[in-house]
């Protein structure tokens, strides 16, 4: 009985340590995002800041789940013969994050293909040409924005996949039961998914808003803009609000940790 209580106490201490290290990673992520936001031209730093935040949270999660764990206690050790898979530990927010990734990829393809170069040759404007004059509206997610964002997205997804794998494969630690260890793993995979969602969703809101703005401004001149620009701009703006709600939900999941269900 006393041994069980000691084991439960050790598990709680371990869990607190994991959360503390993860929280430090989140704080580091805020600092990294502030630094990155000040970097670059024409708002590219601001666009990449959520990716920097997400990467720091992901790294903090990996460190908390692997390096910050105490060594195996002495004595016989046992291990379950059930293979642990990442998909068995994914939270209910996973479809939302997958949807954000798909929407961002599709949107970046469309905006990259439809963007025009500005006077310095950088593809970051939406242009419409009427018989008299060519109007340009921006910022718009042409290659100038979409290339670094796509690279950041690839990096975030790769690190998230590695982080989730590390979390799921890490040993049981001092948890007195496999189910207790699995609850910790689920929580950390939940953080990985939430951080990925924020790293993808926040720039997506920005791209949606700038796209909606460019389409809206362009549609003010009906002789230049096609008729579909106005409703598409409105729909894109509404989608931006919806995505912002989703990102807020993920931010809540990331911050409301102790005992909270992911």
């Amino acid at each position, binding site marked *: 009985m006393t041994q069980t209580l000691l084991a439960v106490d050790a598990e709680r201490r371990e869990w607190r340590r994991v959360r503390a290290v993860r929280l430090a990673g989140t704080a580091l992520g805020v600092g990294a995002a502030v630094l990155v936001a000040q970097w670059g031209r024409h708002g590219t730093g601001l666009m990449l800041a959520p990716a920097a935040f997400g990467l720091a949270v992901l790294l903090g999660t990996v460190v908390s789940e692997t390096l910050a764990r105490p060594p195996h206690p002495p004595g016989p*050790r*046992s*291990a*379950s*013969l059930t*293979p*642990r898979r990442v998909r068995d530990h994914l939270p209910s927010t996973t479809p939302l994050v997958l949807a954000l990734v798909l929407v961002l990829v599709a949107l970046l393809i469309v905006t990259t293909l439809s963007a025009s170069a500005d006077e310095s040759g950088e593809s970051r404007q939406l242009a419409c040409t009427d018989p008299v004059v060519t109007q340009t509206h921006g910022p718009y997610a042409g290659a100038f924005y979409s290339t670094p964002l796509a690279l950041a997205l690839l990096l975030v997804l790769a690190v998230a996949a590695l982080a989730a794998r590390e979390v799921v*494969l890490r*040993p*049981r630690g001092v948890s007195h039961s496999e189910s207790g260890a699995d609850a910790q793993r689920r929580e950390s995979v939940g953080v990985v998914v939430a951080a990925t969602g924020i790293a993808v969703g926040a720039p997506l809101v920005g791209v949606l808003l700038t796209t909606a703005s460019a389409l809206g401004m362009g549609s003010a001149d009906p002789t230049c803009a096609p008729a579909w620009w106005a409703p598409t701009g409105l729909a894109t703006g509404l989608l931006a609000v919806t995505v912002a709600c989703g990102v807020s939900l993920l931010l809540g999941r990331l911050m409301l940790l102790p005992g909270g269900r992911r």
Partner: protein
Amino acid sequence: MNLTVDPDDPTPPYEQLRRQLVRLVETGALAPGDRLPPLRQLAGDLGLAVGTVARSYREVEAAGLLVSRRGGGTRVAADVRPTPAPRRLRALADGFRTEARRLGFSDAEIRDALTAALEAG
């Protein structure tokens, strides 16, 4: 279903694992086609080197009880059938006899030791 390794046991850890895996397959606790955990998972959980677990898997695989595929993990071989209980008992007895003879005991001493063990239990 768990595997256990005792670091204080003089039997090497890979052999402890091998024996347990063979027993689980032979008793039918692990059915044909059942997937085993990745080497890294099992090694991490048991606090062993990946190579130690890999050696256990390799030896059980060499006995035809497991099948490993690149990228497909390690599974219990499809054609494995649980060993009938009397044959398992006979195999245990054979192992005991062989080990005891190797240590230099006579058949009479082995018989006495087994009888004493049965009476004690």
